[in-house]
């Protein structure tokens, strides 16, 4: 009898210990199969010279050296830095500015939120098409309004800035909502005190709002950078990287290397570099966050 209850307890205990892992099995199967295994394989393959159908030859970091000697790679990096910096800076600061403005008891707050946010629920493919049409040299709205015949997307100087405009339009509303969410959590009584002390709006923003929503700002900037690095729909649909690679960004470059030229070894290497950069960015973010939490 005693032995029996012991056994029951044993299986029950085992069940309790195992159960959490059972709940995690499905998600880990897919995480490993479709996220971590592909990444590991990609990092591994970047060390080989290979092509579809040919033998793999181990060449160490040779692929990385080849890429570092490719001028186009550096041009694409430069384009991506310009694109990321420009679009992130403008969209995040606009979003913050609008969120601070809208974080009041406004009658039409919901209306403004919808109007600024709606581009985010439109497919970027639709966004790209409509902007191609707006930028159209002959029948486009912009040239009509400006009274010019500029070929925006086919110009060496204007192609990349045009893509930035679309990127800003598509994402600003989302950052705006994230900032609003951050602002809503701020204690209102602090502002009452500040008002009693005679602080003006700029002082309230500079010394209260801005420091208080620091972590939101960090988060939004990181998110915006990651999104801008991975932006490919717009390039693919609007400019195909042209003219003369002036609007070629990293993922599109990767796409052409892999799926147009089938340089799979080079493409794996580009993927690996990209992955490492994104990983470092994320790590950097967490370190900053931890430091901030630690000091606060």
């Amino acid at each position: 009898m005693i032995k029996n209850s012991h056994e029951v307890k044993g299986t029950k205990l085992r069940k309790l210990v195992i159960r959490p892992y059972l709940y995690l099995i499905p998600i880990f199967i897919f995480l490993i199969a479709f996220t971590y295994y592909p990444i590991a394989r990609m990092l591994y393959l970047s060390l080989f010279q290979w092509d579809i159908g040919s033998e793999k030859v181990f060449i160490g970091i040779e692929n990385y050296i080849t890429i570092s000697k490719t001028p186009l790679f550096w041009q694409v990096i430069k384009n991506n830095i310009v694109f990321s910096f420009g679009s992130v800076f403008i969209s995040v600061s606009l979003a913050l500015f609008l969120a601070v403005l809208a974080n009041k008891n406004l009658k039409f707050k919901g209306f403004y939120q919808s109007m600024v946010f709606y581009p985010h629920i439109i497919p970027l493919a639709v966004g790209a098409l409509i902007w191609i049409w707006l930028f159209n040299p002959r029948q486009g709205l912009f040239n009509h309004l400006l009274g010019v015949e500029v070929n925006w997307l086919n110009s060496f100087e204007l192609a990349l800035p045009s893509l930035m405009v679309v990127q800003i339009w598509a994402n600003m509303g989302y950052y705006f909502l994230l900032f609003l969410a951050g602002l809503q959590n701020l204690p209102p009584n602090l502002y009452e005190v500040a008002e009693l002390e005679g602080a003006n709006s700029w002082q309230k923003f500079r010394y209260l709002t801005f420091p208080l929503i620091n972590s939101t700002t960090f988060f939004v900037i990181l998110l915006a950078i990651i999104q801008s690095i991975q932006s490919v729909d717009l390039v693919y649909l609007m400019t195909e990287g042209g003219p003369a690679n002036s609007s070629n960004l990293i993922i599109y470059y990767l796409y052409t290397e892999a799926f147009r030229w089938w340089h799979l070894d080079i493409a794996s290497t580009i993927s690996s570099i990209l992955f490492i950069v994104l990983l470092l960015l994320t790590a950097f973010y967490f370190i900053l966050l931890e430091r901030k939490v630690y000091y606060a």
Partner: protein
Amino acid sequence: MRSQTRNKVWIFMEKNHVTTNLVLIITSAIVLIPLFWIIITAIKEPAEIFYRPFSLIPKRFALFSNIAEAWSRAPFAKYYWNTVVVVMGLLVVQLIIAIPAAYAFARLEFKGKNLLFMIVLAKLMITAQSVLLPNYLLISSLGLLDTKLAIALPYFSSPLGVLLFRQAFKQIPQEVVDAAKIDGCQGLKFIWHIGISLVKPMIVAFSIISIVYHWNEFFWPMLVTDTAKARTLTIGLAMFGLKGETGTEWTLTMAIAIVVVVPLFFMFAVFRRQFINSFMQSGTTG
């Protein structure tokens, strides 16, 4: 006297946030231009966009004939069906996989919990684009190219889902769990009968984000599909709009674009508050 009226004007403006409203109205108007232009173009007759002088107001309401014309030229019904199947099927799988995992992370104690949780969360930063090539090679070696499954597979494990549901499960009071346990309802049974109804708001929030994201996705589905068999709406639309030689027929393209965005816009109009909150939450918990 004059300074007094000026003062009054100033107070009125301050009280009613006149400047704030003005700035927000102007911004809204600018952001709205593309949508406005989609609609205007979609309404015009195909020939009208070439008319001079250029006019903002369509001469005839040709939206429905434009939609019918575009619909007849490409298998949009098939694209629509594919999109609905991928989006809804994926959502169901994501929920089934994420909910038990989130429950384990929220309410159960086990070895390696933090590490495992970090491994799940790390995927938030490893987005589809950075693993485009390896995932393509994998899907291709599994013989799954040009299937709806290929579009959805990389997204089956959803870290955002785990994150949101974990938070929701944490907020269930321990007494509820204990009471259910006494009635013999625990584990999966608890999740199914009680847990799901308690975290329903979070399920709605997550569903909105998932539906919007995957309805709108373009690059990955484009990469893994070759024929109308599995293609989704965004790809069908892009192909229809950008078929080089003959030149884009903008009125038809914009008419179909409206058909593509209408379901989400309708949802957004009806559940506006819920949409806004979902997207706000997607950031604050991340």
